[in-house]
């Protein structure tokens, strides 16, 4: 427990499991191909690279759109609208519930109950009410993520030392001014952290909704290709989605550190 890896050896150590997985895949793929040249389950890297090139560079014959980019754009748009709306709602309600005991008494139990409704169970309702278009997919993300954000923000507000709120009032601040100048800036880093944690669930809801009813999108493509056992499409798509959410997570983490440096001073550098 006292052996701490240095920066470079740490990077190498972190890279090793990835290299191992790739090596095992390549080995298994070659083995299966040797037995059955028509094998579709583990396509070799060369075949996947060719598929990626075709999806990312050549327009589709039917729609004349480049499949990978139109899928990515559609999915990211749904995700951004859904998460953006959720973050805004979560922040607004979280502040109200955290600061105003009356609002908490009135809405707290409702939020607690709604957050227990499994979002996938209401997906049929969303399809019926909002149709099969964009709206139902966005609403699913909002429905799945917002209650968590509201509860997390309420807790973040409640965790602020009571002394600070009293102090602000003794400097003449109204409830509105306390919310705007004392509470809001202090819970912003926590909001970003909560959105980071929500990325996984948001993608889950997005891909589920796209799998069931869509004509474009990353999840739609994966589930479409499943019918043809087209692992050479599915595997790169999964890797692409993983990369996208990793980049978003990293970008949000950087945003929080750059925008709110005072919130991270206690962390060792």
């Amino acid at each position, binding site marked *: 427990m006292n052996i701490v890896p240095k920066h470079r050896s740490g990077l190498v150590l972190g890279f090793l499991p990835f290299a191992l997985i790739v090596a095992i895949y390549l080995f298994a793929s070659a083995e299966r191909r040797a037995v059955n040249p028509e094998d579709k389950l583990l396509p070799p890297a060369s075949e996947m690279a060719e598929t990626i090139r075709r999806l990312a560079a050549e327009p589709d014959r039917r729609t004349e759109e480049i499949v990978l980019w139109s899928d990515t754009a559609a999915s990211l748009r749904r995700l951004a609208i859904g998460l953006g709306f959720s973050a805004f709602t979560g922040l607004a309600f979280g502040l109200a519930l955290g600061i105003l005991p009356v609002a908490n008494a009135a809405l707290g139990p409702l939020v607690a109950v709604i957050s227990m409704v499994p979002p996938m169970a209401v997906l049929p309702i969303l399809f019926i009410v909002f149709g099969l278009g964009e709206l139902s997919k966005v609403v699913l993300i909002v429905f799945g993520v917002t209650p968590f954000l509201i509860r997390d923000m309420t807790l973040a507000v409640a965790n602020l030392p009571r002394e600070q709120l009293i102090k602000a009032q003794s*400097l003449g601040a109204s409830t509105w001014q306390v919310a705007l*100048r004392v509470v809001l800036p202090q819970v912003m880093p926590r909001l970003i952290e909560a959105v980071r944690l929500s990325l996984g669930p948001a993608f889950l809801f997005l891909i589920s909704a796209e799998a069931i009813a869509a004509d474009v999108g990353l999840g739609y493509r994966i589930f479409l290709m499943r019918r043809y056992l087209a692992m050479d499409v599915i595997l790169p798509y999964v890797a692409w989605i993983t990369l996208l959410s990793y980049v978003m997570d990293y970008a949000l983490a950087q945003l929080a550190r750059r925008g709110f440096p*005072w919130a991270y001073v206690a962390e060792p550098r």
Partner: protein
Amino acid sequence: MSAVSIRDVWVEYGDQIVLERINLEIASGSFISLVGPSGAGKSTFLRLILGQEQPTRGVILLDGTPLPPDPGPDRGVVFQRYSVFPHLTVLRNVLIAYEFEASKVLGRLTGTARREAIAKSERLLEGVGLASNRDKYPSALSGGMQQRLAIAQALARRPRLLLLDEPFGALDPGTRAQMHALIVPLWRELDMTVIMVTHDLKEAFALGTRLIVLDRPRLDPQAPGRYGAVVTYDLDLQRAGRGPTLKFSTPLDPSREH
């Protein structure tokens, strides 16, 4: 400057009586040291005057008018911890007091008003010796500097009454002595009435013009919440002579009816 009258104040939480029969006339401009064992209701007493809590019975008058039921700019406060805003720099921690005053909707000042408020804030920071740290965040300050900032912040709105809740309790003895040397001239200069809760008897005697001791003189073992704390000693520390000692003062008769 302001006088506080506390008339027959009781604080009860359900069955539990925390304070009972508190009657005090606090003269304008006095420096009250409030001491007592843990759980004797010192902080409750301070919260009453702050407006954070309401007495169950009795009234508190500030210069003859009943105390408003919420904390307000006429009563400044410094707590032992968490008194400053961690997301604002030293200067902005003081500036925010003026922004609360002048900008009701946005809570922010611009232009000339902002420059004037900054100048006022800087003068206050100079007064507590923090002028060179104006752009640091509180987390970069030592405990003593944070408390000095809290004091500057509390003075920004020129409160008539300054409430200190064990303000120097978390500081080392050297820093504490510096803080004592800081607070007394500020109190004289600004003509405030100060009420300070402390655990440190030496501090209480050194700073205060009057010492008030809260304690629970009666305890019913079958009902520990039955009797609350009362004022057991009330000493005038400005008396000429050698200065009072607890041993020779006469305790107030706790059963006496006021």
